[in-house]
Structures are given as C-alpha cells and as structure tokens.
C-alpha cells in the first residue's frame, strides 16, 4: 500500500509499504477514505519532536471503512464508516474511566521512555514519534487501529467524509480549548494562532457563549477565515498585541486566552529572537513567544488555555506575572473520545460544518507536496488527502 513516511527534517515520502496486519484481538483494520495533515505534523516535519525513526508512517487525522475486526471488537463490523480519535485509549484504566483518554495508562508500548522524560507517560498516539508509542499512522491506504472497541465512532450517512474527518483531532482540540476557558456571559476570548485549531477554537468559543472573540495572526487569509467565523481580528505585524488587546477590551484584558500556536511560535519581539537563538543552540526545545504574550495580556484572574503542542523545556517563562495576576492554566492533549458524540451532534444539527477549514484537496500520492504547501502557509490552512 502507499503511505507517507518520515525520513528526516523536511523530508517526507510517499512509499510502498506492507499492508497492516492485526496484532491484537482488540485491533481493527481500516481502509482510509480521507486523511489530513495536522499542524502538529509540521513539528515532525521540522524535526523538533524527538524519537522519530526513518520510515515511520505519519498521520493521526483519518477516517475510513472497517475491513477487518478482532474477536474482542463487538461494536464494529466490516463496512462500517468510522472516524478515529488520534489518541489511543484502552477504556479500562483510571484515566479512561474518567474521560481523560489522552492520558491512558495502557496504550503506550514505550511508556518507560516517556516516563524518563515526563515522569509518567500519556497515551499512545497514531504516527507521532516513538515516545508516544511508535504506532504507524493513517496517512496511508490502510491503518491498524488498536483498542478499536473503544476509539472508532460510526458516522451516519447524513455526514460526509469531509465533515466527519476533523472529529479525529482539530475540532475536539479547538472545542476543548474553548471549554477549558470556562466561558461565562459577556466573556471576551483571545485566540493566538488562526491555523486549523485556532479556527475551531474561535467557533467553539462562540458556540459556548463567548460575547466576543479576538483572533491574532499575521497571515491575511487566516485572519479572513477567522473573521468569517465571527471573530474580530488583530494582525500582530501592525502593532503591540498586548496594547491592542487592552484597547479592544476597554482596559480589562481578555477573560481567557487560547494559545493555539505551541512550541514553534513566530514573532519579531526581542524574546522571540532570543528563543530562535536558544533553540538553534539546543539550549531550549520550545519557543513560547505566543504563550508569554497571552500571559501578559490576560485579565487578572483569567484563564490561559493551551491546545498548542509543547514538547520539552521553555525559557524565560513569566511565572511571576501569572502568579501576580492569579491566572488559571489548562492544557494537554485532547481527550477526543469524550467529544466525539456531542460534536457529531452539533455537525448533524448544522451548528457547524467542519469542512470550512479545508483549502487544499490532494491525492495521497501528492503527500510530500501537501506537507510543503502547508508548511509554506501561503493561502493554505488545511490539506486533506484522499488515497
């Protein structure tokens, strides 16, 4: 079968690889209908996530048709059209039973490696480095889904492949980011980053009752899409973000700030350049420019919600600012399983059509081009690939 494989920094290839086999009685095999490149895949593409191995199959956003099920997967049968959460969860451990599926105790076969770095291991992920399990991903024609009795959700005929696809990751991720803001009447939410997750965070914040959403980026097409979604926009190239936010909120500051950027933030401020230098010298693994700005801009007693991916150590983290202002932090990988059904209902009711975010439709054969296009950002927000 064809699959997109990782070969190093800015080197991904479409290769012929063996088709996946069942390895456990709780496995299922899917034929992929549609898969997408995630913003977090670009971190792999840039080589900033450790423990990738040459030949690893990428991709954690995919949906498709069940073609084989294990003996312990009573909920699925051949021909079911399903969408699969990007985090792999056993459904049995303390964390799964408390809806914290991205923290599953049992799904990461390389948990001991993760424990060395993080103390404890989070769940296994599809196609996202060996520290998160080394599972083959879904940017391929077929994929093996472990714990298939827990993850995959059947999609009704009324919902198209494109509408269902983003339930795997970016819609729940944006939604959880907004939910973590604990939005009250009259709240103003600021969102750093108008990539795919930022776009869903903007719409989710409005769905959850935010009075206003302010979207921050410097790419015109992304700001345009944010505006279409109901946000006010702020281009960070056109002035000081913290100052502008103070004006836009009449001196109060946003009630909640969402960092939908993560460890590879761009910026032109002194601290951003400092981060580039330190990252280049391997003295720092993450560039938290957007996060620093969010902490500075947030109102007193407000909430910082971080759906953007961080991987290691950050420098010059303004903890004193956060302490002085009594901020609350929410972060982490998305507990996708918890959001599948409620968000599918919102799609079915027509409250949101997640396919709005797609700008590029390609074939799986064009995978390498897809990565480069998404990386160049010019007019590109979301790339979907059809095998």
């Amino acid at each position, binding site marked *: *079968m064809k*699959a997109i*494989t*990782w*070969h*190093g*920094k*800015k*080197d*991904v*290839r*479409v*290769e*012929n*690889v*063996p*088709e*996946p*086999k069942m*390895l*456990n*009685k*709780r496995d299922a095999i899917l034929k992929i209908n549609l898969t997408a490149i995630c913003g977090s895949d670009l971190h792999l593409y840039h080589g900033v996530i450790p423990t990738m*191995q*040459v*030949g*690893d*199959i990428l991709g954690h956003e995919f949906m498709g048709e069940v073609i084989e099920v294990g003996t*312990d997967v009573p909920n699925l049968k051949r021909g079911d059209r399903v969408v699969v959460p990007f985090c*792999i969860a*056993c*459904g*049995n*451990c*303390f964390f799964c*039973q408390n809806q914290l599926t991205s923290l599953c*105790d*049992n*799904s*990461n*076969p390389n*948990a*001991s490696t993760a424990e060395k770095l993080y103390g404890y291991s989070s769940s*296994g992920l599809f196609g996202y480095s060996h520290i998160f*399990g*080394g*599972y*083959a991903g879904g940017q*391929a024609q077929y994929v*093996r889904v*472990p*714990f298939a009795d827990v993850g995959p959700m059947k999609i009704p005929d009324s919902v198209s492949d494109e509408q269902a696809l983003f339930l795997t990751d970016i819609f729940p991720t944006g939604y959880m980011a907004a939910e973590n803001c604990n939005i009250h009447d009259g709240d103003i939410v600021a969102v750093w980053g108008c990539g795919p997750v930022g776009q869903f965070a903007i719409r989710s914040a409005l769905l959850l009752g935010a009075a206003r959403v302010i979207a921050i980026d410097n790419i015109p097409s992304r700001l345009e899409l944010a505006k279409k979604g109901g946000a006010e926009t702020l281009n960070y190239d056109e002035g000081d973000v913290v100052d502008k936010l103070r004006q836009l909120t009449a001196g109060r500051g946003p009630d909640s700030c969402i960092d939908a950027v993560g460890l590879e933030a761009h910026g032109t401020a002194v601290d951003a350049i400092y981060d580039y230098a330190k990252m280049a010298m391997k003295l720092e693994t993450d560039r938290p420019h957007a996060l620093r700005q969010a902490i500075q801009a947030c109102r007193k007693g407000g909430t910082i919600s971080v759906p953007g991916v961080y991987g290691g150590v950050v420098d010059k983290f303004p903890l004193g600012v956060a302490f002085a202002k009594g901020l609350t932090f929410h972060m982490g990988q998305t507990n996708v399983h918890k959001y599948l059904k409620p968000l599918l209902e919102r799609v079915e009711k027509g409250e949101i059509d997640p396919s709005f975010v797609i700008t590029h439709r390609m074939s799986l*054969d*064009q*995978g*390498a*081009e897809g*990565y*480069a296009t998404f990386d*160049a950002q010019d007019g590109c927000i979301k790339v979907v690939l059809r095998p």
Partner: protein
Amino acid sequence: MEIIRHKYNTPNVGKVERGASVMAGTLLTYLGIRQKGWSGAGMALLGTAFLRRGITGFCYSYQALGFRTSATPQNGNATIPYELGIRVDEATTINRPRSEVYAFWRNLENLAEFMEHVESVRMMPDLRKSHWVAKGPGNRRMEWDAEIINEVAGILIAWRSLPGSDVPNAGSVHFADAGAGRGTEVRVELQYNPPGGAIGAYVAKLFGGEPSTQIRNDLKRLKTRLEAGVVPTTEGQSAGSTRAEKDDERHRVSEKVVTASEESFPASDAPAYTH
C-alpha cells in the same frame, strides 16, 4: 534499587586473607622504612594500610563493592547472604478488584506472562513450592526452586528461594485497596544476590538493565494485562524503508516512489518529482 552493604567495622575479610594482609603489610612497612625518601614513605603507608586490614579484618573496598570473603554470621536458613545483595521496592496501582489481582498473582505460573526475564514458572502439586527458569545476563539460563513462606489470602504473598539456586532471592508482594474505587495497590519488595554480586549489578545498570526499572516495567505489563486484557504492541506493524534499506537502494534500481526532500524542493522552486 538499593545495593545492600554490610555495616562499617564488621569484619569482611576471610581468615587466610587476613594473615596474608598482615604479612604483606609487615614486609612493605619494613622495606619502606629501609628505602627512605618519598617512595619509601609511600610503601610504608601502603604497608600500614595492609596491616590495618589484616588486624581488623575490615576492608573498605569490599564494603563499597558489597563483597565479603569472611564467613557470614547467620544461620543456615537465610536465603540471601548476610548484609549483601540488591533490594528493589516497586509498586503499581491496578484498576481491578483486589481479589482478582491477588488470584492472578497467586497462580505463580501467570508470572512468566508479564515478567520479562522469567521464562517459565512451574507450580508443584502442593502449590507452595515452584520451579523457576529465567534469562540472566548474556541470555544465560538460570534456574531455582522457591517456596512460599507466608501467605494471607488477598493481602500478602512472601517467598524465598531454596538452597542450590542460581540466583538466591526472597521477597514479598502486598495487595491493598487504593480506596474510592481506584483499584488495588500492589507493592513488591525483592531482595536477591545477582550473579557477580554488587559489581554485577553495577555493570547491569550501566547497560540499562537496572533491576528496579525491570521490576517497574514488569509491574506495568501486569497492570496492562489485567486492565486492558491485551498488551499493546507495535511489533510487526508496517513502516517505510529504514536508513539501512536506503543505503541498499543506492546499489539497486529503487522502486518508483514520489519523493520530495529539502534538496529537491526548495521553497522558491516548484517540486521536483521523480516518477
């Protein structure tokens, strides 16, 4: 992991060796005094160190290395040599009822399923004695017989190996409710004398075979086995060409695949495809 060392000033040098130390010490001290100068002083100093070792019967190096040549002050029932060996304390919490976790462990033959280095456990008909086969350093086959010396249903199992073991060991596992529906706490205490003594354990640690990490990973597999029913794996899954295969490819006509790399695909240029 804790390397157990005997206390300071307990004699740890055997009788013959103590005699040899006294003789060598006397000779070195005598020669050192006769030779004079710095080298003489050095010899005399070394000589007095040997004298002290021989007279007191205590060797600092042996103590540091967890090693002794003297007879051990213990009765014949003890499994692990007195004040020697490795001690490991590890624990896990398993989201299953205590009775179930205990019953799984008490059927000792199940242990080979999640203990990486244990190849098989065979229970004797009396259900107290068992025969163990394990993989040691360098894949050396090691065997021992063990017996359960204390057992409280649902709470405790304690065992020790019997004389003639390749790896003398003793330990216990305690089961307790974590409370508030959080499953069962499993605590393992294990003491054993590894092949090569404490030096062997140090060497194993250098090569990543740290005993407490091994036991922790064993307990993790037990937890996953009992909670999830299966142990997750990626062994046998698909992957693209590895670096080694890539090197091979240079010597043969490669399969035609679409590739774009940093070299072939600068941002300013159109993608260069090889079809």
